[in-house]
């Protein structure tokens, strides 16, 4: 069976500053696994380590049983992992369509690329209308669509999403969560970093809570909703 990701005893540091300490996680198939935690807990750092941007000091990362710990990002992507990074990071001087094409950079078949493009335009009709517009001139909400659409273009087996609703209106946040759920329903495993705890736990099956670089709680969404740590941290 597909085992999207196992993270074992991961230690990550920037220079001398230790950010993650002995992190252990499992991202399961066909479901949304979420990662909660306050600002500065180390969530984005964990994601950078998973995709190869910041290689860990110690520990291992497995994708479907295969050790991918110190692979360069483009090799990680080649395994079937796509990442929607913190802050969207769209290519602002490229058109919307070029951004999407960048998402499918490693796909060689033109027919396949075209099919995926159509699928993304199907999900976000707005992007189809604006395909020629420079991505940097799109509104914040539209840029969020570009970054999610771009993340879908490689047809990933595992999608890692870092705070997709940052800076969006409540209505758009809701729409975003709906789309992430539908991505998961098509069979893609999702690892979701979020600050909107209620909405996240509503769509996630399993979750972890990170604090100061350590996993301080984990469990099913139901368990986390009633967890005292989570209660204390988020629902006061």
């Amino acid at each position: 069976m597909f085992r999207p990701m196992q993270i074992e005893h991961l230690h990550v540091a920037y220079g001398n500053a230790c950010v993650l300490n002995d992190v252990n996680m499992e991202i399961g198939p066909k479901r949304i696994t979420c990662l909660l935690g306050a600002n500065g807990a180390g969530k984005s750092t964990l994601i950078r380590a998973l995709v190869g941007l910041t290689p860990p000091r110690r520990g291992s990362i497995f994708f479907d049983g295969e050790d991918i710990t110190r692979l360069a990002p483009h090799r990680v992507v080649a395994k079937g992992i796509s990442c929607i990074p913190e802050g969207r990071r769209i290519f602002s001087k490229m058109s919307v369509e070029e951004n999407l094409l960048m998402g499918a950079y490693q796909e060689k078949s033109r027919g396949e690329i075209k099919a995926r493009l159509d699928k993304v335009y199907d999900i976000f009709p707005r992007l189809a209308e604006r395909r020629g517009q420079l991505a940097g001139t799109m509104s914040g909400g539209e840029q969020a669509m570009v970054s999610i659409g771009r993340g879908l273009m490689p047809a990933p087996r595992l999608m890692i999403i870092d705070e997709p609703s940052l800076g969006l209106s409540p209505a758009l946040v809701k729409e975003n969560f709906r789309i992430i759920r539908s991505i998961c329903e098509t069979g893609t495993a999702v690892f979701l970093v979020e600050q909107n705890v209620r909405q996240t736990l509503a769509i996630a099956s399993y979750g972890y809570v990170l604090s100061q670089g350590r996993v301080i709680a984990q469990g099913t969404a139901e368990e986390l909703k009633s967890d005292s740590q989570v209660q204390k941290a988020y629902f006061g």
Partner: protein
Amino acid sequence: MELFLQFCINGLMLGMMYALVAVGFTLFFGVLDVIVFSHGDTVMIGAFGGLSMYWWLGAVYPGLSLTWTVLWVFLAAALAVTVVGTLVARFLIMPLRKAPPLNTLLATMMLGTVLREAIRLFFPDGSNPKPFPHLLPEWSWQSGSLTLRFDNALLFLSGAVMIVLVHLLITRTRLGMAIRAVAQDEEAAQLMGVNFTMIVLATFALGSVVAAFAGVMNGLYYNEINFGMGLLLGAIGFSAAVIGGLGNIYGAILGGFIFAFLQTLGAVALPFASAYKDVFAFGSVIALMAVRPTGLIAEPSSQRV
């Protein structure tokens, strides 16, 4: 008037050469945020590579037609410079990526000296200027005192073709898209599956081929090359790239022509002292930079390619 036209024609020629050199500076700055100061000397390597090929062809295939000779000379120059350029990128510039930009600047300046000295010491009689062969037909059109030389027109056109090819590569191909992506956001590009090292090397190869072309063009235009020719060309190419706004390819091309225009203006306006045309041109660049610190093409300083 005719004198002025003549100056303009010569200025266009020079502008094309400068533009080709400036494109390299701006490409490298785009993908790696570094100034590769030795780029001018890379141009010189191109010219010497082309000359070596000419000598070799003369010795081995004395009867080779001019067309083939020219093609082989360009090819040899491109090859020599691409090898040097990608080696420099891989073993000097990539390892210095995490170092302060000033260190990279210094390292590439020293590399430029190494390249110049290598040619001076190891090329046969390298410390003296070398005659560069006339490889293009020497027809010309004469109108009064105005001369339009066929070989120069040909060089100018090929330079223009080169620029169009670079433009098409950057805007229309998958490689070009990856180069632009890396220039805009190197990490995001990697997350899309772009092999960063490969793209950097490809960019250096591209910039080098363009530089090689400029080197041979320089040789064909002046019919003489020397080990130090890259120094001034480098300074001019760098200035042109800065005038156009570093990182912007079209700005660099424009900058090349502007610099040549300034030189020409200097020569026309100061006929009694045309030796000062470079002083005039560089002085104007300094004045321009004081007025428009981010270059002529107005863009937020963070945007490139």
